[in-house]
């Protein structure tokens, strides 16, 4: 048994033993659980992929004369300005003004909120256009200017939902293409797409939220941030395997970090044909080895993690709840997989390669003493379902 404080002291003195969620599997096999739990202090997990429900609060500073901004666009992408005079929230999935969307189906969605966030992190100049009705104390009614992230007072990423614990595997059983947030799905089950870093993924290594909670430190695109809340749609009461690992979405995390400290390599605007725009993020989360049970759960292997294959041509949009079958990540990480007797080509939306890179970077930062653990102030809910939205005819 170790405490957060003991592990943090070891990190600060540069003596912590840190391994990635990939390395720990063989290490525990070799050393045995008890010995490894004594030796290893932290296991690093990571993921890199599209994370809708991301965005950032920006403070532009006051112009001369002052303006109480009511509507704002950055590079023609609308930001929410109903917060304060010069504060705005830019969402990852906001389309660019005049984007024809799916008017010419399937739309290309070349640029949107996620791309503006990428530009900001990379230090590129963006255009701000803002409107107001004018008040006695904030007389300016219109402005257009150019700025980069260094011109802003604050740029703070606040993501209501990241790091889905597990995710659907999308397939298309119909006879025409389906354009989805998991990419283009070919007709007649020609291909499928999954989106998880499997045995590296943060919440798959801490399936019961024993260490990842509100206040936990996270590596968010290179910036040190933390879990600020349970993620939206956090639904721990999900179908789980015998190893407690969920086989469907389940838990999620609300994450925040200073965007000024992020690195451009780990944040990317996403264009999904026929669907829309989003933002891909690299996230690393350290798991403290407080006891052998926690360590044991970090040794989960791809073949022990299952996901549900869902038909995105009908069952997903109509919310029927039907699952075609279950597959594990070891099989998904092969070039093709057999579903209902048919050979199906596999695509991924999540980058295992980038996740590995991030798990290594976080390991290095912790080993060097640059990244300490945050002690959670609250646990994530362990029992909680998810509500749907009922369309009612009357009040």
């Amino acid at each position: 048994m170790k405490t957060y404080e003991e592990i943090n002291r070891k990190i600060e003195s540069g003596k912590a033993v840190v391994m990635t969620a990939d390395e720990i599997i063989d290490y525990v096999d070799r050393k045995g659980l008890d010995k490894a739990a004594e030796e290893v202090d932290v296991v690093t997990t990571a993921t890199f992929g599209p994370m809708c429900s991301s965005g950032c609060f920006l403070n532009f500073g006051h112009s001369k004369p002052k303006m109480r901004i009511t509507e704002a666009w950055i590079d023609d992408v609308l930001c929410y300005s109903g917060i304060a005079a010069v504060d705005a929230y830019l969402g990852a999935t906001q389309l660019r003004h005049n984007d024809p969307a799916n008017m010419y189906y399937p739309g290309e969605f070349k640029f949107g909120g996620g791309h503006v966030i990428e530009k900001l992190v990379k230090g590129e100049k963006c255009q701000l256009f803002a409107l107001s009705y004018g008040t006695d104390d904030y007389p300016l009614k219109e402005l257009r200017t150019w700025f980069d992230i260094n011109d802003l007072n604050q740029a703070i990423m606040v993501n209501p939902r990241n790091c889905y614990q597990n995710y659907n595997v999308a397939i298309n059983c119909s006879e025409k293409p389906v354009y989805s947030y998991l990419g283009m799905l070919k007709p007649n089950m020609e291909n499928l797409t999954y989106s998880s870093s499997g045995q590296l993924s943060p919440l798959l290594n801490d399936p019961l939220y024993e260490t990842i909670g509100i206040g936990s430190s996270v590596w968010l695109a290179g910036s040190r941030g933390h879990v600020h809340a349970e993620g939206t749609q956090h639904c721990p009461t999900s179908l789980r395997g015998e190893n407690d690992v969920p086989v469907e979405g389940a838990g999620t995390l609300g994450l925040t970090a200073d965007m000024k400290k992020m690195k451009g390599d780990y944040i990317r605007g996403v264009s999904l044909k026929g669907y829309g725009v989003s933002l891909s993020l690299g996230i690393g989360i350290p798991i403290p080895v407080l006891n052998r049970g926690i360590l044991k759960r970090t040794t989960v292997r791809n073949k022990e993690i299952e996901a549900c294959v869902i038909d995105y041509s009908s069952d997903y949009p109509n919310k029927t709840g039907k699952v075609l079958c279950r597959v594990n990540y070891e099989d998904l990480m092969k070039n093709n997989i057999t579903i209902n007797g048919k050979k199906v080509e596999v695509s991924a939306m999540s980058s295992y390669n980038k996740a590995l890179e991030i798990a290594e970077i976080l390991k290095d930062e912790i080993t060097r003493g640059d990244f300490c653990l945050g002690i959670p102030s609250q646990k994530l809910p362990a029992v909680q379902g998810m509500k749907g939205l009922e369309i009612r005819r009357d009040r």
Partner: protein
Amino acid sequence: MITKKVLLLFPKSETEKPIVYHLVKDYDLIVNIFRAKVTPEEYGYLVLDLTGTDENIRAGLDFVRSFNVEINEADRGIRWDDKRCIQCGNCLSHCPTEALYISDPLTRKIDYNEDKCIQCLSCIDNCPYGACSSIF
């Protein structure tokens, strides 16, 4: 017999000549066209495989050059930008010839083998990050 993939860039004035016909007829070459845009009003391009003897391919290409057609043997129409690529592998089920492939199963690193590319352009359509692009 060898096969060589080449990119021919036609100036406006040369787009009316039946160059491919002569490559087949006079130089005994098997021509497999991947992509072509040849219109009388503007510059055109042809991306093709030439299969034949080394000597015939060389002579055929000399013949093509005599028409003021630019031959580019290095650039093949599709570019994969490894800096834009985030190694997700969304392209894998869309690339019919495994020109985009996983070069290391352990790290799931994506790589691009130009020789296998048939320029179907589906990677351009499907890459969420714009890592693949066409030079035309």
